[in-house]
């Protein structure tokens, strides 16, 4: 009687079949996870590449408001470049006596006039004083003051600072 350990080995097949059932299971789990973390809020606060927001405990979520973004080399209003910065600093020739930026003030003034025009045509729309500041965590306070002063002179007095929600 032939011992069992001398059984002939099964010939190995060169073909490998794709286990689609397992792949479907993995894809289902991935999809459920992605759907759970997917949000479709009206406000989008995606900072530009390379911009690191400061961390803080913030309760309020994103709102629909004018967005001013301050990075190392650029100031943007609603995604449109306004002024180039040199190492987070406003150029001296752009500053007025009140500590506001002339270029930023001009853009915000135009935006304010546009809102006024819309409010005149549509009585249901009121002037919005909210502005969201999206600034890199390394921006010096002097630059933040310039941005806030520029916005305040144009009637934007309700400031929201965009932060990464900490634990």
């Amino acid at each position: 009687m032939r011992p069992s350990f001398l059984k002939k080995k099964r010939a190995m097949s060169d073909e490998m079949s794709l286990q689609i059932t397992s792949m479907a299971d993995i894809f289902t789990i991935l999809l459920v996870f992605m759907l759970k973390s997917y949000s479709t809020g009206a406000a989008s606060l995606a900072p530009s590449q390379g911009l690191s927001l400061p961390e803080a405990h913030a309760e309020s979520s994103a709102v629909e408001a004018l967005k001013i973004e301050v990075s190392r080399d650029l100031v943007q209003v609603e995604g449109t470049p306004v002024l180039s910065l040199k190492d987070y600093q406003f150029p001296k020739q752009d500053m007025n006596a009140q500590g506001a930026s002339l270029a930023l003030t001009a853009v915000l003034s135009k935006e304010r006039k546009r809102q006024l025009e819309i409010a005149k045509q549509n009585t249901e729309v009121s002037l919005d004083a909210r502005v969201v500041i999206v600034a890199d965590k390394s921006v010096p306070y002097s630059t933040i003051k310039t941005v806030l002063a520029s916005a305040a002179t144009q009637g934007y007095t309700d400031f929201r600072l965009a932060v990464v929600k900490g634990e």
Partner: protein
Amino acid sequence: MNISGGSGHSGSQDFDLNLAPIIDCFTVLIAFMLVSASFVSIGLLDAGISAAGKASDSAPAATVQASLELQADKTIVVKVLGTKDRAQKAGFSVKPNGTEWNIEALAAKLREIKAQWPGIDSATLSAQNSVDYQSVVRVMDTTRQTLPSVLLGGF
């Protein structure tokens, strides 16, 4: 009795699920979700400004206010300003913890101030020009735990 639907049908209701189109759909959906997903949660901190001694409209006026100033050497100067009684003015200096801001000491000091002057619920935060934004936000966040209304000053 066997019910069969048309010629050639065996009458069995067994069918094989064709997984290939399902995998195609899932691949497209997952690719779309990955591109549009944001794994960083962004929130907003309410901040008003205190310019020329006037508080912004969003912050309630308070008789007794706290004032914090962040200095370049990471010292935090805390002052309590009371308009009714000048004797209520008090000043504290929170020294840095090595080379970092001493946030725990600041939080403890603010709790002491709140216990001594329960009417305080707002603070004005200013900083020297070279202080970075992260430090301002961090101190603001700590202050808000005790004094809910924090205005940015120094204008």
